[in-house]
């Protein structure tokens, strides 16, 4: 395939390219000139393996503007101090308009820059200083600026403050990086956004805040009482919200002015001139006032997302854009015929590209765990309305079509499948999968709505509004359902549960006594005793993560502050609180993300079978082999790999253990409580943490060695270990309850693109999806790119820039992930259907 000459490549028609399944070339040939220009002009902000692409630089303007104002306002309540600093940034950050673009708003001051917020985490500030390649020229001058910033913020960041009050043992173990990842602060976070509230327009929100302030000031003039005292703290918070909302309107108007100036004084092309004037009109209108048409609604939406990222690092993008923008599409395209379908598709495609270009610096662990992307922008599509009726609309289809044209790896989509989804919409999902995008992932809506009600008690009408809070976890977009902060900072490296059960709680990799001393397994008399040790290690690991995040959450308003988010959160505006303050009525929607989970079931099964049931090996022999990292024990290792039962083969021996583990965790999930006094269920999924943790998890009884990639995660069987076909995988996964046994369960499947071509392919996939739904699974996602293409891309990456693969809870361009991750994807079993 890589051998073709440039001449033959040129001559191939779209149909021929489609027959060859070269979907990336099909996209390039069929998208509009505008989309092609915008797509090719966008900078790649996701890391390639663990590093940023050449040319990507850290933005120094934003932190300098922020810090100079922050220092000037020293001594003010934090939310007010921060509001002034953000407003100063929004008023002064350089802005620009990309040729041919129609949607405005950018984070940073130049197109090749990524940003970071120095107020959050001093370790990351230092990492930026030490980072190769991203320091802007002249380097010496930039290093001076960075050192000055770091000297000021060192000891003053949100995480510095938190580390001082955490139990020191917890702080060291949490920050060892061995047991989990994430930062217990909203300095690295994401938030649900309720667009039914936000789309009232910022002027309406300002009026509401003003009203609350007047009402409160009146109360304060009354009889003094203890009840009045907390009101004094609310006033500066409301003032902070006002400052950022007003600055946001000014920020949009700067774009309006720029567009108008370009149109009136510089643009000679009459079509572009008209577009620029429309942009000016749009940015004068939103976000100050409610949107009236599709361009205004998309622009409003993008401004909100950009503004939120001027406040903090939002690492995910919980959103349901087809639901939010569908009515405006319908009005413009179907009713008033103001836009043609093609014009609308241009706007939708650009919406995807503008989102793809958002780049925020990610520390190395996050770059390794999310290779190729800048964050998990998983947008939710389809689903039902609060009354239970089908919510799919023309925008659902437009987004799927646009995704196939622009082929960005971020955002990706998660589709809320339900029994009433129309065939034409399902076909659009399948086309995206068939084109090798790896998305949408398919989510079982009835199961997840029930799950959302079960775990947190969200009312069913609210549960039905759910969006992917990050990669996988549903969260309602309602007043009390919205989640303002990343509560999944309790992200567990679950393989440590089994590793610690084997090593009496000691971590041989980081040289530290981590978990409780549960005893030397050589002394255990039976499997039950071993399993008891596993349960204790599991409880310990979850406890330390959850209590760290809980503390980070309640302290966030004091240590970090979110004036912008608070200003667009109805419950925060109503109560004069920080959006992250759990006392303002949030119902709670926390979960523990379970990386490297299946290793537990496979390892427990191997121990049970070989050590206790069959007594083929003693625990002493197993421990010796593990301590030697299986070196010198290859025959024994292969026995453990090949002959011990493995999850995903419809084998009750190991599947029962998986169910038993999940039920233990679910019991414990109800004992752990979040600050809203709600539960912490487990959500097994991985992003590319299986690669990040490869060097942090020692040898395991499933035959894995230190340094080998871990399984690709969630409840996906180990790569190449699911030998009994796709139905056996589904049957294993259907042996537990996807409502009550955890929060959600990621399942990766690789399908054969040859087998799934044409109408027959669609029907095969549809039948597979029926089995999946009947078995009550909540998630499945597909890779449908053949090995030959992937190997060719490894050899000749320049030619395959737009080949996308599903990594785990996200998709990435194949050429942007490390060799180890690429190999891990190629190793996954290709399942034949039917």
């Amino acid at each position, binding site marked *: 395939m890589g051998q073709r000459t440039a001449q033959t490549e040129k001559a191939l028609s779209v149909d021929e390219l489609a027959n060859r399944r070269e979907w990336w070339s099909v996209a390039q040939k069929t998208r509009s000139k505008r989309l092609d220009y915008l797509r090719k002009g966008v900078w790649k902000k996701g890391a*390639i*393996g*663990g*590093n940023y692409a050449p040319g990507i630089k850290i933005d120094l303007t934003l932190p300098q503007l922020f810090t100079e104002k922050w220092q000037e306002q020293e001594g003010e309540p934090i939310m007010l101090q921060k509001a002034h600093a953000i407003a100063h940034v929004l008023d002064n950050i350089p802005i620009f308009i990309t040729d041919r673009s129609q949607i405005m708003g950018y984070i940073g001051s130049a197109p090749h820059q990524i940003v970071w917020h120095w107020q959050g*985490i*001093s*370790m*990351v*500030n*230092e*990492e930026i*200083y*030490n*980072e*190769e*390649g991203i*320091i802007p020229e002249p380097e010496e001058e930039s*290093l*001076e600026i960075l*050192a000055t910033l*770091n*000297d000021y913020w*060192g*000891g003053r960041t949100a995480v*510095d403050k938190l*580390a001082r009050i955490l*139990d*020191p*043992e917890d*702080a*060291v173990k*949490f*920050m*060892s*990086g*061995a047991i989990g*990842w994430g930062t217990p602060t909203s300095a690295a976070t994401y938030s649900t956004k309720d667009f039914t509230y936000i789309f009232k327009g910022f002027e309406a929100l300002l009026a509401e805040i003003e009203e609350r302030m007047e009402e409160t000031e009146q109360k304060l003039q009354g009889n003094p009482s203890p009840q009045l005292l907390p009101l004094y703290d609310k006033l500066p918070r409301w003032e902070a919200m006002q400052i950022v909302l007003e600055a946001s309107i000014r920020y949009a108007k700067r774009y309006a002015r720029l567009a108008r100036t370009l149109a009136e004084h510089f643009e000679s092309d009459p079509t572009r001139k008209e577009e620029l004037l429309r942009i000016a009109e749009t940015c004068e209108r939103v976000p100050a006032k409610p949107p009236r048409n599709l361009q205004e609604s998309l622009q409003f939406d993008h401004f909100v997302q950009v503004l939120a990222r001027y406040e903090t690092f939002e690492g995910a993008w919980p959103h349901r854009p087809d639901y939010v923008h569908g009515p405006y599409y319908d009005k413009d395209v179907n009713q008033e015929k103001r836009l043609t379908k093609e014009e609308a598709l241009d706007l939708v495609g650009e919406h995807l590209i503008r989102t793809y270009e958002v780049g925020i610096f990610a*520390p*190395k*662990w996050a770059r*390794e765990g999310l*290779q190729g992307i800048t964050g998990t922008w998983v947008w939710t599509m389809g689903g039902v309305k609060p009354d239970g009726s089908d919510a799919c609309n023309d925008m659902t289809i437009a987004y799927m079509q646009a995704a196939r044209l622009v082929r960005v790896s971020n955002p990706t989509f998660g589709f809320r499948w339900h029994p009433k989804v129309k065939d034409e919409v399902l076909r659009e999902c399948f086309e995206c999968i068939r084109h090798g995008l790896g998305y949408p992932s398919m989510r079982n809506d009835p199961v997840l709505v029930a799950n959302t009600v079960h775990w947190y008690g969200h009312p069913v009408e609210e549960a039905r509004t759910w969006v992917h809070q990050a990669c996988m976890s549903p969260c309602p977009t309602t007043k009390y359902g919205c989640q303002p902060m990343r509560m999944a900072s309790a992200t567990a490296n679950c393989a440590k549960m089994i590793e610690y059960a084997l090593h009496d709680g000691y971590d041989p*990799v*980081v*040289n*530290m*006594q981590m978990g409780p001393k549960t005893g030397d397994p050589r002394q255990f008399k039976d499997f039950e005793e071993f399993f008891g040790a596993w349960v204790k290690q599991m409880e310990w690991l979850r406890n330390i993560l959850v209590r760290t995040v809980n503390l980070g959450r309640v302290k966030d308003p004091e240590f970090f502050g979110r004036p912008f988010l608070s200003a667009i959160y109805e419950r925060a505006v109503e109560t004069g609180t920080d959006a992250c303050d759990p006392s303002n009525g949030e119902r709670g929607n926390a979960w523990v993300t379970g990386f490297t989970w299946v290793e537990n079931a496979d390892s427990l099964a191997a121990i049970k079978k070989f050590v206790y049931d069959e007594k083929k090996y003693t625990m002493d022999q197993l421990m010796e082999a593990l301590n030697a990292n299986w070196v010198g024990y290859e025959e024994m290792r292969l026995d453990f790999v090949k002959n011990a039962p493995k999850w995903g083969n419809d084998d009750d021996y190991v599947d029962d253990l998986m169910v038993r583990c999940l039920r233990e965790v679910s019991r414990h999930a109800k004992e752990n409580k979040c600050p809203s006094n709600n539960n912490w269920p487990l959500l097994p999924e991985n992003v590319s943490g299986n*690669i*990040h*943790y*490869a*060097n*942090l998890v020692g040898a395991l009884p499933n035959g894995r060695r*230190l*340094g080998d990639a871990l399984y690709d995660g969630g409840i996906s069987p180990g790569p190449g270990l699911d030998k009994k076909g796709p139905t056996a995988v589904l049957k294993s996964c259907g042996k537990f309850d996807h409502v009550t046994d955890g929060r959600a369960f990621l399942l990766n499947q690789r399908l054969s693109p040859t087998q799934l071509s044409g109408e027959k392919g669609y029907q095969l996939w549809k039948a597979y999806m029926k089995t999946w739904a009947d078995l009550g699974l909540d998630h499945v996602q597909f890779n449908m790119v053949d090995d030959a293409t992937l190997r060719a891309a490894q050899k000749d990456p320049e030619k395959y820039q737009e080949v996308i693969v599903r990594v785990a809870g996200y998709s990435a361009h194949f050429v942007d992930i*490390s*060799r*180890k*991750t690429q190999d891990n994807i190629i190793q996954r079993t290709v399942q034949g259907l039917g």
Partner: protein
Amino acid sequence: MSRRDKWKSARDAMMGPLARAKGVKNRESVPETCCGKCQMWSENAYSSEGRGTCRVLKMGSDLNSNQPTYVLEGEAGLISYFNMDASRCTYFTKMELIDTDGTECSDPHFRRALRQMKKFNE
């Protein structure tokens, strides 16, 4: 020493020196023999600003005093930094930097040369 005090010193070592580093000069200095070049050093997985743990020495070890102290028993490994002077550490074992450009993740040893370590690759 109480449990709290014991872990407090580990935490202070972990959260300490780099946050207190002042100016460009301190940040740029990397001694010829440093922990970042030692096989016993594991880069911290939580943050990559140059913190790590020693796989041999435990907390309480001190390489800076005239007579270095080596503690080999204990619950927590010694927290050290890539640019910590290791010229007096008798356990120093030189490591080859096998992935100096950092595009491959998760090589078995410290695999990403921080910008300041570049001079050792040349």
